[in-house]
């Protein structure tokens, strides 16, 4: 950060276009229900606890339950449940520091905002741009998952399906979601609440029935199997793969500026959604591997869970899970597109990318440039159709941010600035944040080389962009 000028340095704090970071909200005038701008305009906070939980759960549940169980069981055997548990622990270790930082800085932008304010503009820019692309990779992954479910539905109703259908359907839906978002929605969030509620209901029935079955209560014998047929290492590489199932809690922080009673609702929504989906994931993988054995499960691929439901509940079970899979993958993809556009806005507000990236049009009131920067690259990645690489790169880029969030907490707490007044404080913070950072960076080591290369390349390009475009912009400690 050699070229970063001191905060507030007059004249120095501009990017290549001459734009300076814009301060919109006055931190001191923050209330539970509004943020207030310098001129006194009120910005309403309109998302409650249920809405926050639904963003977290809705983003995560699509991948962990409906896409990964088959892939994970193929790699790690029944110990795939352990992989999901490892993911949950890491996510929790990060969710706690992220919650503290979010209650101290309840603004749009989430992780990017914390890192840039705590560690400075260079790490901020790397995280901000990486997270934009990380979300793009995640969205593409969810859409391919959707394509798999759509094809499974077509097969179910007896349609003949060609080779490229998964990608074609994923592309079509990606376009549809982007256009819908460009036109603007007013009740999609409450719709999302109902979708998440329905998904939880379906899963609860499925898991209750499946657990009884797996424990032998229902009298069907399940194949006993070695817990770790491939040894302990695949448990970790699988954890790295399936970590994409835990990316949603940070999306709650990206809309922190819209959350009511942020001091209470942000920690509850973030930690609560991680705990909830963590338990569901572990239970699902346990039920799935008990019902079929991991080899058979792996053969079913992305929609393995449908076959589990069919074995347990016949046609009705399979249909319920198919519908659930369609809803879950769409809601994950849509939530990620929205988070992407918020992430782009956050970096453009801070002059790290051109200001026009955050412009909105008055006709539809939507940030069309940012949404295009979300939807466009998603379509390119969907066309590649590489599920595992997409998932891992998304996780890689998120994990870098997660690790830096933990580092940010330590940095801020060691020398607390005057403005730092979080409503929620992590107990034993050096331990939790330290472990969180180590675990986040550590998990990256277990990924496929291809994902690591792509992830690193994104980070290097982001840093290069910062040097080229916004080297004089300083954000550290600027609220």
């Amino acid at each position: 950060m050699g070229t970063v000028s001191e905060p507030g340095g007059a004249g120095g704090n501009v990017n290549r276009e001459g734009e300076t970071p814009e301060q919109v909200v006055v931190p001191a005038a923050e209330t539970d229900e509004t943020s207030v701008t310098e001129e006194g305009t009120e910005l309403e906070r309109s998302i409650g606890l249920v809405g926050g939980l639904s963003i977290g759960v809705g983003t995560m549940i699509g991948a962990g339950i409906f896409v990964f169980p088959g892939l994970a069981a193929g790699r790690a055997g029944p110990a795939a449940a352990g992989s999901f548990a490892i993911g949950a622990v890491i996510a929790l270790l990060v969710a706690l520091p992220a919650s503290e930082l979010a209650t101290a800085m309840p603004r749009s932008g989430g992780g990017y905002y914390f890192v840039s304010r705590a560690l400075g503009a260079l790490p901020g820019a790397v995280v901000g741009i990486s997270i934009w692309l990380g979300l793009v990779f995640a969205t593409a992954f969810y859409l391919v998952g959707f394509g798999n479910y759509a094809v499974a539905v077509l097969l179910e109703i007896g349609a003949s399906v060609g080779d490229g259908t998964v990608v074609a359907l994923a592309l079509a839906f990606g376009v549809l979601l982007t256009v819908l978002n460009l036109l603007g929605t007013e009740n999609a969030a409450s719709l999302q609440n109902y979708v998440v509620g329905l998904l939880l209901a379906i899963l609860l029935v499925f898991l209750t029935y499946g657990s009884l079955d797996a424990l032998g209560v229902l009298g069907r014998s399940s194949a006993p199997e070695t817990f770790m047929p491939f040894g302990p290492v695949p448990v970790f590489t699988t954890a790295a793969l399936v970590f994409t199932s835990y990316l949603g809690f940070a999306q709650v922080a990206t809309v922190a500026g819209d959350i009511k009673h942020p001091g209470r609702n942000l920690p509850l929504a973030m930690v609560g959604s991680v705990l909830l989906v963590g338990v569901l994931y572990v239970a699902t993988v346990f039920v799935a591997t008990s019902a079929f054995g991991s080899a058979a499960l792996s053969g079913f691929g992305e929609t393995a869970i449908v076959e589990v439901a069919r074995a347990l509940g016949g046609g009705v079970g399979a249909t319920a899970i198919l519908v659930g899979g369609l809803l879950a993958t769409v809601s994950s993809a849509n939530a990620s597109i929205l988070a992407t556009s918020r992430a782009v806005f956050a970096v453009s507000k801070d002059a790290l990318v051109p200001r026009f990236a955050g412009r909105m049009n008055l006709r539809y009131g939507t940030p069309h440039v940012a949404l295009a920067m979300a939807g466009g690259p998603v379509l390119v990645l969907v066309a590649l159709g590489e599920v595992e690489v997409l998932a891992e790169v998304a996780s890689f880029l998120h994990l870098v941010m997660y690790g830096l969030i933990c580092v940010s907490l330590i940095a801020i707490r060691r020398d607390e600035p005057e403005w730092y007044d979080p409503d929620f404080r992590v107990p034993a913070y050096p331990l939790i944040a330290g472990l969180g950072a180590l675990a986040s960076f550590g998990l990256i080591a277990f990924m496929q080389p291809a994902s690591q290369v792509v992830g690193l390349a994104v980070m290097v390009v982001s840093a290069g962009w910062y040097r080229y475009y916004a080297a004089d912009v300083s954000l550290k400690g600027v609220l």
Partner: protein
Amino acid sequence: MSREDPGGSGPAIREPPKVLVPVRVLEGQTVPEPLIEFLAPSDVVVLGYHVIPEQTATEQASMQFEDRAREAVADIAAGFEAAGRGVERRVAFTHDRDQTIARVAEEVGATAVLLPNPVGDVEDVLVAVRGAIDVDRLADLVATLLAEGDQRVTLWGLGNGTADFDAEAAVERARETLRDRGLAGTRVTAETTASDAPVRDVVERSGEFDVIVMGEGGPTLLSLLLGDAPERVAEETVAPVLVVRPRPDRG
């Protein structure tokens, strides 16, 4: 509820009524001149708001449109100031209009909220008295607004035929309170109708009146599906609706 007014003479208003006037500023909505004059005797809070879709951060909208919104609100406020009393200005960007209006109404302690509609000269005012309305507060508001003018008031009690609301008694009390507040009895007409669907009945008669005053009405199953009663009235009629809010201590 049995408030005695020992003096009985002169406009004994307990609290100066305060009317919240929410305006969708960026869509060019304004408040018609006759309505500004009609509201001039009360304190006015102009709330300029802009509803943005979920895709957009409120910060984002304010960065781009704050100045325009503030100017539009200043214009409207200037109109009220020219007509009479003090005007408070609020500007808000929101994803949820109802939440913002309810919050600001609460914060400023508004007696009533205006749901604007176009209007000509205000001559006839309909006061719909349904269940669960604070008659004293309603009378305070109406008496203040009409004290100086010569508009006619129709008090219309809409009974639902159940024992928990006696429309006739409520209308009678409203009439008495208005008289206590100094409104000439000749300007007030009172009538009562038994009604199963007060909202529909109000809408049907709304053509005869220039302004409608009514209570919020409690949440019902129907209001969950179709929106609050006053909003339905405002949507289906051409007249502006003044919604009287219950006093805070009455929940």
